[in-house]
């Protein structure tokens, strides 16, 4: 048990830790329902065209097969009707690929049929016997080729302040192009949906989602049924990193099959399907120009970007936005175009566009620092701003300078060689690099139910999800601090759309949004307790609520600590078995809207490059976050560690490979798509400014999920340049890009 000022809590570990280490925590696919059937997708083997004929007869004859659902026998889905006039009023058209709906193929690996059987083995054995006859059409999956023809591009958004391309007139400038391949979230848990129709218009789903409420909305509108008739349960989510921010084909397909067969259906994607059916970080090309005067003041920044999307949906993200407001600069222009390809639709992947954008911007700044012969941190400090130059509002709080100071000291920045390629340790070329990350810090609305029972236990509920960052823990800690109650007596429940509405977990907004609601709920409960005390407990008769406080599970007079009543005794005295309140906390108030809020990070890397073969070994990482008050230090640290691991993958190994002759992904497994492993992870030091942001919300906390990753890629490539004098602008870094030939 620890004591921290007047806060008491027992331990700082995850409140749901025990269930995660003993296997009791249940994820979407781990629920079992009576008479449940198993479904497996059959996927297309062409990239584009139509299906002339689909022979399901052999699959239907396989043991245990109940049905093969495809365009010709798929029941009508209200949300699949394109014509609004024909669509039922309460239905909204499904966004994206309408699975099992028509005979069109839009990307390689698209689901074209769903085999449903009485066991997983029977379903899986039958998929190969579904035979499709295609009428293929020409397609394009090659981003690098297609982006060169302006006809292929869709203008998305342009921005300008001051003079365009001003950087070219500067004392010193750089203009460079950057390429990031498609990266795939690849959360460890496979996407899965169990759908169970409990009535004609009532369905329960166990689903892997970052937003039980958003999935509820999607399903209710797709099937044209009332929201309250859709229940989405996602009590544990095995990672998602953005891929769970929308519903994919598995959701409607499981619902369709369960309805058609009138029995619960479980549909689990395979690992290869995780590469093409649940989104990815889009491929990007960027060009950044940046110029500075002799003193290092930025005179102009130009940032252009192209990212891919699918043919059937536009997906855009904040790739060029970071250049608009991270540094003081009067002349900024950005251009952002989309390139539709015959692939599935991308989606936000951790750090989303800002991670791609910061890679380019922070690399370009590093390049410029060498031209100016200036320390890159000094250059950043020269252009430091406390006012957002895009919207002219002050940052609600910014302490990046503290992050720099910590990182400089901890990584040993003084040992960084001024001349690239000039430092060796144990035969390895040594380099130091750093880069900065920034991401918006929002506060939305959320509702929380708070229940204090007369056994002294406190229950809080919100329909948000926890895909791993530790929301359950952070919210429990917040309630413990607000209520001055031990953590053990508090339970925070989430992951169920039946709970009061909360946001999807994403965009680094959960702690700020749900945390504010938890804080407000606790304060409201305390007020209620004070009122009950004044009304029911004779010792408080005639007193004012302001003269009381709720602390250590008691209502106490502020002026006389001996005038007090235990809250359990109080409820009994008032003859109440519980206090049950549901409160809603709204977005930023007028005072908070006078500021612009962001979280910031600064990452520092020391690495070695083997001069014989170009192997990059990261030796040490210091990662620092400026995200207001850190609510749950242990889980927050873990999130930052996770960002470092994600960043290492982004820079050193992750790349989706597509065979452009067939449009097929050729490395759709962990054997071909390399995510970081244990032995690639260097000793990592995590540090937070940990100072409440006074202008964002009442709890002073901002998000860290994105800033943990944003900027990290450039910290590595900048260090590689420092070590070798070779600038890698195309991720991932491979020995060839450092001038080494790979062995044949």
């Amino acid at each position, binding site marked *: 048990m620890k004591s921290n000022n007047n806060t008491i809590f027992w331990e700082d570990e995850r409140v749901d830790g025990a269930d995660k*280490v003993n296997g009791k925590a249940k994820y979407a696919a781990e629920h079992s329902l009576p008479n449940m059937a198993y479904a497996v997708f059959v996927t297309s083997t062409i990239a584009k065209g139509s299906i002339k004929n689909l022979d399901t007869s052999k699959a239907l004859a396989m043991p245990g097969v109940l049905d093969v659902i495809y365009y010709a026998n798929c029941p009508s889905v209200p949300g699949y009707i394109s014509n609004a006039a024909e669509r039922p009023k309460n239905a909204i058209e499904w966004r994206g690929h309408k699975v099992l709906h028509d005979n069109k193929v839009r990307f390689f690996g698209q689901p074209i049929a769903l085999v449903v059987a009485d066991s997983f083995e029977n379903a899986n054995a039958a998929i190969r016997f579904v035979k499709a006859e295609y009428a293929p059409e020409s397609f394009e999956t090659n981003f690098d080729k297609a982006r060169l023809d302006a006809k292929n591009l869709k203008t998305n958004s342009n921005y300008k302040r001051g003079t365009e391309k001003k950087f070219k007139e500067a004392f010193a400038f750089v203009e460079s192009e950057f390429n990031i391949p498609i990266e795939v979230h690849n959360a460890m848990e496979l996407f899965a949906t169990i759908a169970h129709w409990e009535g004609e218009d009532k369905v329960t789903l166990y689903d892997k989602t970052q937003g039980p409420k958003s999935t509820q909305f999607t399903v209710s509108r797709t099937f044209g049924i009332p929201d309250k008739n859709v229940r989405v349960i996602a009590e544990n989510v095995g990672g998602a990193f953005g891929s769970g921010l929308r519903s994919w084909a598995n959701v409607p397909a499981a619902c369709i099959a369960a309805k058609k067969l009138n029995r619960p259906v479980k549909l689990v994607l395979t690992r290869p399907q995780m590469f093409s059916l649940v989104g990815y970080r889009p491929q990007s090309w960027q060009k950044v120009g940046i110029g500075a005067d002799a003193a290092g003041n930025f005179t102009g920044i130009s940032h252009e970007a192209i990212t891919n999307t699918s043919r059937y949906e536009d997906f855009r993200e904040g790739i060029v936005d970071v250049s608009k407001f991270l540094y003081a600069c009067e002349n900024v222009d950005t251009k952002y175009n989309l390139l539709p390809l015959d692939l599935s639709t991308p989606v936000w992947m951790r750090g989303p566009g800002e991670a791609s954008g910061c890679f380019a911007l922070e690399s370009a700044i590093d390049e410029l620092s060498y031209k100016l012969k200036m320390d890159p941190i000094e250059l950043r400090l020269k252009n430091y701003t406390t006012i957002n130059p895009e919207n002219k509002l002050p940052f609600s709080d910014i302490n990046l300078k503290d992050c720099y100071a910590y990182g400089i000291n901890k990584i040993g920045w003084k040992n960084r060689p001024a001349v690239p390629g000039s430092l060796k340790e144990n035969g390895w070329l040594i380099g130091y690099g750093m880069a900065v990350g920034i991401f918006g810090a929002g506060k939305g609305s959320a509702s929380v139910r708070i229940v204090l029972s007369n056994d002294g236990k406190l229950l809080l509920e919100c329909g948000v999800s926890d895909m791993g960052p530790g929301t359950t823990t952070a919210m429990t800690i917040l309630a413990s601090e607000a209520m001055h109650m031990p953590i053990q007596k508090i339970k925070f429940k989430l992951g169920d759309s039946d709970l009061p509405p909360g946001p999807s977990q994403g965009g680094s907004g959960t702690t700020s949004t749900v945390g504010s609601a938890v804080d407000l709920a606790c304060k409201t409960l305390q007020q209620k307790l004070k009122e009950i005390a004044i009304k029911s407990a004779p010792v408080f008769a005639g007193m004012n609520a302001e003269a009381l406080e709720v602390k250590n599970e008691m209502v106490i007079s502020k002026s006389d600590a001996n005038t007090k009543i235990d809250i359990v005794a109080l409820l009994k005295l008032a003859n109440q078995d519980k206090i049950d309140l549901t409160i809603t906390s709204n977005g930023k108030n007028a005072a908070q809207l006078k500021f612009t809020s962001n979280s910031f990070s600064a990452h520092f890397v020391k690495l070695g490059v083997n001069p014989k073969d170009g192997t990059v070994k990261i030796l040490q990482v210091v990662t620092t976050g400026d995200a207001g008050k850190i609510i749950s230090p242990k889980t927050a640290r873990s999130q930052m560690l996770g960002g470092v691991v994600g960043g290492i993958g982004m820079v050193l190994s992750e790349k989706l490979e597509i065979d452009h002759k067939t449009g097929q992904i050729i490395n759709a497994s962990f054997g071909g798509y390399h995510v970081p492993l244990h032995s690639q992870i260097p000793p990592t030091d995590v540090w937070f400014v940990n100072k409440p942001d006074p202008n964002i919300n009442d709890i002073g906390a901002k998000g860290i999920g994105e800033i943990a990753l944003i900027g990290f890629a450039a910290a590595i490539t900048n260090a590689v340049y420092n070590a070798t004098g070779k600038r890698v602008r195309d991720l991932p870094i491979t020995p060839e890009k450092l001038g080494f030939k790979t062995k044949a």
Partner: protein
Amino acid sequence: MKPCFQQDGRRSFLKKSTSLVALYLTPSVFIKAFAVDTIVPTPIAKEKLTITINGKLLKLEIDARTTLLNLLREDLAFTGTKKGCEMGQCGACTVHINGKRAKSCMQLALTHQNNKITTIEGLGDGEKLHPMQVAFIKHDAFQCGYCTSGQIMSAVACVREGNAKSRASIQTYMDTNICRCGAYQNIVDAIAEVAKTGAKI
């Protein structure tokens, strides 16, 4: 191919299961070459399996194609063992077979007649957590928790194998298990701490 298997012998099973598995795992492009279409309507026989799971002897009748992973998760509700790739690449499904770690997605359940399987549910002593489970909580060696069962089963094996003598060795012998949330440093901290106690685990 005959419709079902009458004998229980491991040898005869293996003989038959080999062709069955070959069919099951054969890429669809080769199916035609093997003229597999002709055996399509063959009913799948239930096979007898005697196996001990977490100390409990079970006598089962199972689909011959069932992997140990699917037997645990789908048939026996031991969902603590996770499915991450079904290709032996991620380690989420790691269990102990006769005390040694193995990826349960790569094992046909029927090849484990009379074997003793330990899953994450059977690692601790009843409700009491195993020291490795305690260390994982203490060091926050997970985020989403999905790879955790496999990490812990591998971690216990790593210590028992004598491969947890240094951080570098732990990392190498834990490269079998992917953690996409990136809890690696904390996982190594947890394993190193348990190994340092020298206790028999």
